[in-house]
């Protein structure tokens, strides 16, 4: 660009500098806790109790990580997080798929097949998003007991699906509103029925919001502790409960390095989901979920 004037160019360059500077400063702020966690997980326990909390490790050791993964004791069984990781996967995958699938169907009905009272139904479902979960633990436990699902992973899947529907329905409803009604009408004239339209037309068109819904649900369910601790026991616990048992020591001595390593292991799947699918997350939001 030969023609740029000196002063204008300089002003612009300074502007860019300020922007990048602020962005990087913010990024540093955001990374700070992660940095503390990583460095701590690489220290030995003695070093930490010697007073080194923040700062680089004097000698790097991965002991804490292997301990967290396969040796740390949760109660008297010293299996590390490994089996609970598997539990969580077995819980999160069906729960995410179910709640997303049902949310998609609900959103489809609420936008393309409105019936008398469908707005009320939507309002009722939406309010469920804002329920403080501590309040429903005991009645839910009773219901699970009646269903003979208490203490099991399917029971937990059921609970997460029920409360997940609220948000997924909101997501899909707000997204499907932006898909023109003419599309379903065209399919009707082509002779397609309710489910055919859903599977052939709506589902393929809903990929962005599926990503949003899946990410949101995955994060919420994977990180849930309250339901996990209430509705499972012992071996069938999800990873957050195991993590809590590693971390939340009252009268014992905290193993900070193992805690941090365990926390990172527990967070790994969600981190991966965010980093890999984060792009689609923003895109999906742009595609419709933003609507007030």
């Amino acid at each position, binding site marked *: 660009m030969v023609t740029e004037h000196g002063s204008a160019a300089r002003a612009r360059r300074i502007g860019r500098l300020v922007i990048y500077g602020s962005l990087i400063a913010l990024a540093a702020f955001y990374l700070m806790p992660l940095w503390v966690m990583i460095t701590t997980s690489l220290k030995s326990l003695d070093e930490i109790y010697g007073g080194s909390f923040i700062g680089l490790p004097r000698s790097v050791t991965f002991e804490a990580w292997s301990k967290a993964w396969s040796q740390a004791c949760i109660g008297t069984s010293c299996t590390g997080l490994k089996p609970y990781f598997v539990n969580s996967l077995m819980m999160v995958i069906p729960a995410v798929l179910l709640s997303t699938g049902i949310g998609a169907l609900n959103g489809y009905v609420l936008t393309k097949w409105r019936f008398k009272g469908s707005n009320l139904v939507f309002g009722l479902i939406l309010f469920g998003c804002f329920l403080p979960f501590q309040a429903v633990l005991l009645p839910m436990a009773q219901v699970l007991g009646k269903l003979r699902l208490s203490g099991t992973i399917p029971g937990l899947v059921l609970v997460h699906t029920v409360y997940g529907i609220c948000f997924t329905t909101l997501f899909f409803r707000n997204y499907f509103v932006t898909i023109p009604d*003419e599309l379903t009408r065209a399919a009707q004239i082509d002779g397609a029925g309710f489910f055919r339209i859903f599977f052939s037309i709506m589902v393929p068109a809903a990929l962005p919001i599926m990503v949003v819904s899946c990410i949101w649900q995955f994060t919420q369910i994977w990180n849930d502790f309250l339901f996990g601790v209430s509705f499972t026991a012992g071996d069938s616990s999800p990873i957050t409960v195991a993590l809590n048992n590693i971390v939340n020591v009252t009268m014992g001595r905290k193993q900070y390095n193992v805690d941090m390593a365990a926390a990172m292991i527990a967070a790994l799947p969600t981190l991966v989901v965010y980093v890999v699918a984060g792009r689609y997350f923003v895109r999906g939001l742009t595609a419709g979920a933003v609507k007030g």
Partner: protein
Amino acid sequence: MATLEIDRVRKAYGSMEVLKEVSIAIGSGDFLVLLGPSGCGKSTLLNMIAGLEDITAGAIRIDGQTVNDLSPKDRDIAMVFQSYALYPTMTVRQNIEFGMKIRGVPAAEREKATREAAEMLQMGHLLDRKPSQLSGGQRQRVAMGRALVRHPKLFLFDEPLSNLDAKLRVDMRTEIKRLHQRLKTTIVYVTHDQIEAMTLATRVAVMKDGIVQHLDEPQVVYDRPANVYVARFVGSPAMNIIPGRLKDGPAGAELLMDQPDGGVSRIAGVQISDAARRKYAGRPVLVGIRPEGFSVAAPGQSAVKAAIEVVEPTGPDTLAMFTLGGTEVIARLAPKAVEAGQIADLAVTTAKVVLFDPETEIRID
């Protein structure tokens, strides 16, 4: 090919009446255009014909059979939507085949029908693209293809051309016209573009606020519009509606219109029934003159005095604006016939002049 009868049909959303007793009947092979401004209920009516909206009152009959309670897929219709409504995740081929697949048409047959439609619409090379990779005109053709492969009794088109640019619009218009001439299928076509209505229709229904204002052949609607609304809506630039007075003289009826300079322009030889002449003699009327109803007067020809204000050359013609009867008037003249600022003598083709009652705004015959 089918006849279509819309018999005293009404539509209300809650307390809001969108269609107020609409009756239209067309024959087999007719091309009906529903013409009207945005929000007048055209799409609603079309959707009711398709079975996509419930009918509040009245009946719709296709080939004599009442279809009020038939679901869309049982009416044997095909529809092209204003926004095309192509399935965004399917290829063009899948879009076209979708309806046949649902009906269980065997693959070989589907293949053949698709190929034929693609050929007719010259889009064989587009079959494997997704709609997002097509231009507006191509999308329109795909939507058309999707309807074509169905060989329905009745085609419904909802403003299929309104998203296209001017050039493409003209091309596609011709293509639709040709299609109709070839297939001879009955067509109902919605538009708010009067040019489309004029070029395509065998019957035009001009609508306003859920009421059919005028239903007739396009040239009749153009030449002898039922009321001022229709006169203004059909034709571009619109018909000039000039306040004037009817004077009954021995030489026949004569129209008087005020010139801005205080003078009075006279038009003699207007065609009008005797009854009307007696009724309106000496009273104000609205004089309807199409822009092309004016021409530069030959010397000595009886003419209107026009102080030309603005001139707009359009290429084939020139539009000239001037004031007459206290209102602005547009004349369509030959290129460079007049210039802005000039005072021109313009002759009026009396055979094409239409009169309206100033109160009811209905045509006087």
